[in-house]
């Protein structure tokens, strides 16, 4: 039982937790939560040195929770900026009706369901209309790599995580996928998918007899360590000490964190929300991937019913997450984003469904460094059969044929802007991303 175990703890758990997060045993704490190879531990100095640099403005440094999917959800179809045109199809459901919305001082319109996000969050939300240059599911990883614009084929969230993790003092630089799939990489290594329930299994406890015998086992293991130390070298003794320290750290998680972990009951969005919150509170990584559906691969979606239901569910989960962050006092330190492999057609099939569409996508960012508003917008395609993302002005965000962000550079611009919204230095972003400009219109000055 959680509480009975906690009562046996030795000293101040919060201090112990702080030690876990910020490190009293050096490299041991810089290992993984997720089963990734602990590159940091074993890597030669070459890679460590880059990672050790804080290449962000510490005062502005943000954690990122990014909802991203290779399904190519129709997130682009009903977001702010999509209701000013005649042509794009929207479901007849009341939750998809055009609704006036305030994004800070900016008045716009969107599907009504977007108004379920907390107003304080909408007041720090930007919706960037752009192209991802692909309509292929399998290019999800490439979109995260900005279709070749990111240095060394690194994914943008990984580039940002590398720049941020020293600034934020996280356990590891590698992003964590929390049930978002295993489509992510860091320095060429595939990242495993940490299911929320696995996190719960890992750290939360129950009230079984075996759990109640935990302290007795700890004592026995300590006795064994003492015996083994009698013939151990210094290095072996240090190793056994670090095992003991690690075990004590695991025993020292705070009450409310354990209860939070214990409340995880699914690997779906609700579990992902809880796990993301827990991992950020534990400062495990600067970047967490989650996956919220907004209708998925809805080629055949009569009356766009799946699209409607998924929007309601997922925006509800996002609202829950944002409010939980606020309750934890983390709303100014965490940026939430949505970005998918591609958007979906807007007008082509009406409300029968939507096909893949590389010509329009909406990336949403909600964060303390974000200037609220809508960036870019739509123009008719050449055939007049649908709409595509148009060029826009990076400074004003206004749609403009003469804009300095052309559609084919917009994905790179979004990557840089995401980094800048997380507090990453502009010079670092310019060095790592060779296409597009930072969209100042999406950032607080």
């Amino acid at each position, binding site marked *: 039982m959680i509480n009975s175990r906690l009562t046996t703890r030795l000293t101040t758990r919060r201090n112990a937790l702080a030690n876990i997060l910020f490190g009293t045993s050096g490299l041991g704490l810089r290992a993984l939560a997720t089963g990734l*190879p602990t590159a940091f531990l*074993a890597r*030669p100095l070459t890679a460590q040195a*880059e990672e050790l640099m804080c290449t962000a403005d510490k005062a502005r440094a943000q954690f990122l929770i990014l909802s991203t999917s290779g399904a190519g959800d129709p997130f682009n179809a009903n977001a702010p900026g999509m209701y000013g045109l005649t042509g794009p199809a929207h479901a007849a459901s009341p939750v998809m009706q055009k609704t006036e919305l305030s994004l800070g001082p900016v008045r716009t319109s969107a599907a009504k369901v977007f108004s379920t996000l907390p107003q304080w969050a909408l007041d720090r939300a930007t919706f960037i209309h752009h192209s991802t240059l692909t309509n292929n599911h399998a290019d999800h990883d490439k979109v995260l790599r900005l279709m070749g614009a990111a240095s*060394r084929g690194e994914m943008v969230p990984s580039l940002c995580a590398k720049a941020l993790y020293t600034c934020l003092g996280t356990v590891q630089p590698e992003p964590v996928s929390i049930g978002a799939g295993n489509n992510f990489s860091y320095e060429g290594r*595939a990242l495993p998918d940490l299911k929320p329930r696995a996190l719960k299994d890992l750290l939360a406890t129950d009230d079984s007899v075996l759990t109640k015998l935990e302290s007795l086992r700890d004592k026995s293991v300590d006795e064994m360590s003492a*015996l083994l130390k009698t013939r151990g*070298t210094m290095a072996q003794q240090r190793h056994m000490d670090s095992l003991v320290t690690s075990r004590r750290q695991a025993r020292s998680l705070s009450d409310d964190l354990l209860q939070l972990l214990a409340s995880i009951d699914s690997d779906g969005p609700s579990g992902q929300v809880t796990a993301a919150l827990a991992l950020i509170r534990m400062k495990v990584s600067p970047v967490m991937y989650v996956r919220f559906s907004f209708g998925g691969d809805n080629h055949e979606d009569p009356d766009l019913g799946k699209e409607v239901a998924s929007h309601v569910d997922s925006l509800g989960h996002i609202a829950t997450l944002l409010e939980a962050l606020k309750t934890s006092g983390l709303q100014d330190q965490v940026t939430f984003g949505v970005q998918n492999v591609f958007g979906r057609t807007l007008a082509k099939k009406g409300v029968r469904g939507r096909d893949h569409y590389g010509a329009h996508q909406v990336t949403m960012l909600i964060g303390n460094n974000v200037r609220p508003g809508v960036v870019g917008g739509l123009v008719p395609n050449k055939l007049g059969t649908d709409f595509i993302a148009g060029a826009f002005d990076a400074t004003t965000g206004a749609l403009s044929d003469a804009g300095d962000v052309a559609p084919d550079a917009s994905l790179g611009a979004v990557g840089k802007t995401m980094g800048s919204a997380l507090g990453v230095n502009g010079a670092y972003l310019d060095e*790592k991303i060779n296409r597009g400009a930072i969209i100042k219109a999406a950032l607080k000055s």
Partner: protein
Amino acid sequence: MKKFQSSRLFALASVLAIATGCEGRIAESESGDGANPATPPPPGDKDPTDKPDVVKPPPPPPFTAQPPEAYLPKLKDLLTGLPITSAELDRVKADPAALRDLLETWRGLPAYRAKLQQWLGQAFQQVQVDRDEFADQLGFDPSNVFGNDNRARIEKLITETFARTAMALIDEGRPFTETVTTNRFMLNPPMMALLAFLDARPLDDKRKKTQNAWFSQKYPNFQMIATRAGIKGAPPPAVAADAYTEGNAAFMKFKFVPGSDRLPCSDTPYVSTGGRGLEEAFATLFGHTTFCAGLMQPVFTEEDWNQFRMVTIRPPAEGENPDVFWNVNKFRRTAELVVGTPRVGFMTTLAFFANWATNDSNVFRVTANQTLITALGLSFQPEGPGIPIDDSNLEGEHAAKGTVCYGCHVTLDPMRDFFRHDYTLYYAKRFDQLDPTKNIPATGTFSADDSMPIQGQGITALAQALAQHPRFAFAWALKLCQYANAGVCEPDDPELLRVATVFKASGHNFSTLVRELFSSPITTFAARTLTGEKHDAIVALARREIFCDRLGVRLGLTDVCNLEGKKSIGPNLSTLALGLPDAGYARGEVTAVMPREPNMFFVAAVEAICTKLSVDIVAGGRNTLWADTETERAINDFADKLMGLPDNDSLRPGIIDVLKRHHQAALETGASARDALRSTFIVACQSPLSLSLGL
């Protein structure tokens, strides 16, 4: 090329260059933890009693030689996952030289082969396959063509192919250098069909699907016709006997039942031509068509999937056509596969290519660098221009003279040309190397670490150059040493050089390398070596594969952590096991990633695994190995198997006593006999001996 001076200099250089986003010249691997070398004391620390004109050699750093009780379990565990026996410990205690005989014995155990195959997959960078990059290389969505079950099978197959190949070369006693030059691979019929298919339907630099010229000539107007023959849920029809017989009326005509009702499905036959037609024909071998997610009986049988043999892959002779991918009957018996796409060494496998995808900006630089890292333990690093053998191969936009990047590209670009000669950016056969718009130099150039520059054309020339490189033996001795020592081996250690010399002198016999290295004090720490002096006896956490293998092999449970989906026990431990850090490799990194330090997630994951396992295999679980009445036998087994303590280990009585007292104390808390024994199992399972390597 300038000779490498010290690992730390290179580390510093790379720090500088990473800031520029570029790599530069070739660097050697470093010791795993980047420890500082012993530095002389500052003048103020000098012993005042020293005579001013007599320089005393500094005293050797403290070093504790390891007893057989410490190193023997480590070595056997690394090589087989098994615990040592009393007899083995007695033998080595009586005569440490007996270790070499034991190594020979262990090499004959099946568990050794499993371990070796696992390591070879890692060492040749074949396992961390990016699914999407693999799909890119194929040119289709593997789930559609293979089906989801076969997709997983194919992905596993490609990650294992080269390890199987290297194992076979070792078994044959071939020089280990042939892992770089071999055109013989361990293949099964589905893999042969896949390679033949990729050869028939290559992807060009823009990923456009084309038909190989020979194929178009032999099968003009090729088309595949698929006709619906039932509704979803009906038994999939068998493929007609003559569907793959050229000239027959049934040639390339198939029947299917829809596999999904999500997609509209027509009764009109589906006709597919061009590159897509080949894909559809290929999919039928696996019982699929992408039309209506259709299903039919697969051509490949279970026996086909399990039938591996060494197959020589060679180009067609003059006037000869390559093997067509549907010739399954040939693949079931042949020892030769005729395809135009060169397959030479570890660096041309589907898995290696899927690990290291290139693009029109990178143009094989990553492929060349990872090849260099894998074969020779060298990587391109910044600083200095290296040897500008011929800078006409450089791409100006990436390597303007005077920039830091120049130093990298002047050496790396000529090497990547070997790949450009033979492959498109999607690793298919290249046909346009002579197209002047492609700007591909006629020859590539390879030189590394002061070696004589070698010029040539194509991947075979590069393979030969790598295999002949003087560093090959040292590189592999170092790799194996780093495996044994969780990443820590001093490259300058004379003992390592000795092992490498013996390996080379044996004609690069891998078994000799294993024997020399694992009987060497550089891994046993039974005597002083430079590595031991600098790092003490290496001790590390039992990383994922070690921990899971131990549990499986020692308890007789198949895939105990369910990492391969073959679990033989009740609880699915895979999600927890994925919480354990594992060995791996990273882009641009010369040294394998070898986690050593435990942390709370590791400890928590192990505890959770042990707890779930105890419920399943101890005292009344579904796969009970010990009844709650068998306390004595169980505790002895825990010590023997889980903790690897033989009867004659001096610590065993004390450890047994701890376990027994734990069992008794648990009973005294009111726990049942079942729970007391389970808790005792967990103690053993999470003891330092079970969680560590090298205690």
